[in-house]
């Protein structure tokens, strides 16, 4: 396997194409532009579909159409653009269409800025579309993890017939790093039982893609079916990585770029202060690895959440762990990247303190 030096956005695009993505629909927005730029030539060159849509709304609805027709489909965008796609994501979830959404987040709210942030945690994990739906959210912390997560997102989307999102920030997308790309397309799940492919005559049954249920009893049954599926995903797919299995004094909980920095901060806490703190990197944000996280911090008096947002992750960690462990928070949002100093100082200042509600 040869390593290539490549920008995050380009690597994600090439990984998707090599992984067997058949159609891509995108719309320009910084900081994910190199992704659609790469797709614009690698997809047609490999006899796949590429459309630069007229808007994010159009792009996600093209995803709905192409996924409904049985295609392996992807779109990408950033913060404000993902906000526009939310209605379509809810439709895809409602109609149980497998699709991959790459979200390269920038800072917000509103137009915000184009520099990295993790303020789209709520947007990704809880969504802004209507209804009781869930989107699988994978959180890579490096270009290689992003490449791997694109393949994983394709597989999870098809396994569960559900939208899957890869959430990263502009730092990873704009970073050049050495990567190993996939060498062959991922195995395909059979879609003939549900995909609307216009094969009524040969199949003998009609496949209809729809999210409208005017009969409340049928819609309730559909929602119960979706919830059962979500429980299955939560049981099977929640994932975290403990970067310091032999450290037990405390923990730093983070994902994405913050986790990368937290690994170094944990190292410094050990070397400079003799405190053995483990970095726990959340690899899936939905399903949230509740059980594994509770287990990992249960005997600790203190754990620090480090995030590039204003307490969004902190809130969930506090709610999901429900333990005597005091949960601290360190973070910033606006385009500045959290530093090792921020995390080390945050840890030292808050350890030994009482539980404070850091979020609003």
């Amino acid at each position, binding site marked *: 396997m040869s390593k290539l030096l490549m920008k995050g956005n380009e690597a994600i695009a090439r990984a998707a194409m090599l992984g067997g993505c*058949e*159609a891509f629909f995108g719309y320009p927005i910084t900081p994910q532009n190199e992704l659609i730029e790469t797709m614009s030539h690698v997809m047609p060159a490999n006899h796949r*579909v590429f*459309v630069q*849509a*007229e*808007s994010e*709304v*159009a792009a996600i*609805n093209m995803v709905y*159409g*192409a996924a409904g*027709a*049985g*295609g392996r489909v992807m779109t990408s965008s950033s913060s404000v653009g993902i906000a526009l796609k939310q209605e379509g994501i809810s439709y895809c979830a409602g109609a149980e269409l497998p699709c991959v959404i790459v979200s390269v987040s920038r800072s917000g709210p509103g137009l915000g800025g184009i520099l990295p942030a993790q303020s789209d945690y709520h947007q990704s994990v809880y969504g802004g579309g209507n209804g009781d739906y869930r989107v699988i959210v994978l959180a890579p912390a490096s270009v290689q993890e992003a490449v791997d997560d694109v393949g994983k997102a394709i597989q999870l989307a098809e396994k569960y017939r559900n939208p899957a999102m890869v959430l990263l920030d502009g730092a990873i997308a704009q970073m050049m790093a050495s990567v190993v790309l996939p060498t062959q397309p991922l195995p395909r799940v059979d879609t003939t039982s549900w995909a609307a*492919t*216009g094969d009524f005559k040969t199949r003998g049954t009609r496949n209809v893609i729809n999210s409208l249920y005017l009969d409340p009893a049928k819609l309730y049954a559909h929602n119960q079916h979706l919830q059962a599926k979500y429980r299955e995903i939560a049981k099977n797919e929640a994932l975290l990585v403990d970067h310091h299995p032999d450290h037990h004094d405390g923990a730093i909980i983070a994902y994405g770029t913050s986790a990368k920095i937290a690994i170094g901060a944990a190292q410094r806490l050990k070397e400079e202060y003799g405190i053995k703190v483990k970095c726990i990197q959340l690899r899936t944000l939905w399903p949230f690895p509740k059980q594994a996280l509770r287990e990992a911090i249960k005997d600790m008096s203190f754990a620090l959440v480090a995030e590039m947002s204003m307490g969004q992750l902190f809130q969930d960690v506090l709610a999901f762990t429900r333990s005597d462990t005091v949960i601290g928070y360190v973070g910033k949002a606006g385009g500045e990247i959290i530093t090792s100093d921020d995390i080390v100082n945050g840890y030292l200042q808050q350890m030994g303190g009482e539980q404070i509600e850091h979020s609003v």
Partner: protein
Amino acid sequence: MHPEKIVFTYQGDGDLASIGAAEIIHAANRNENITVIFVNNAIYGMTGGQMAPTTLPNQVTTTTPLGREIITGAPIKMSEMIATMDHIAYVERCMAADGPSIMKTKRAIRKAFECQINQEGFSMVEVLSSCNIGWKMSPVDSLTYIKNTMTQTFPLGVFKERKHETNH
């Protein structure tokens, strides 16, 4: 995804001329090899009779109780607008108001699908149709209204003549 399959949309005036206006214009501009059946009854029928972008001047709807005024915009002529795109295959406006006009509409729809089968590109048939409940008229009066009133604003005819040239 399946270029060998026949693909068509069936869209009302709220969908095609308002909330989905950007999408239909760009689908036409990409000369997608699809057929669009555009049902224009100048009102939002399914939601209970509100103003549509195609609602006629002075027409009473549940959101224009005193009649549509120009401050809310003029009726959008989608067939004329889409026909400005030189490279598309075929655009015609018909009506479903009596036997002969329905037969003419049928022939237009057939022609639109032939365009698609022959890979000529984007084809659209606009059909002026009635919504007697939303218009608060008898079914017979509403057919007369299509013929005598709607066609004043939305003239019938071919706006993009089929050239039988394969585009795809």
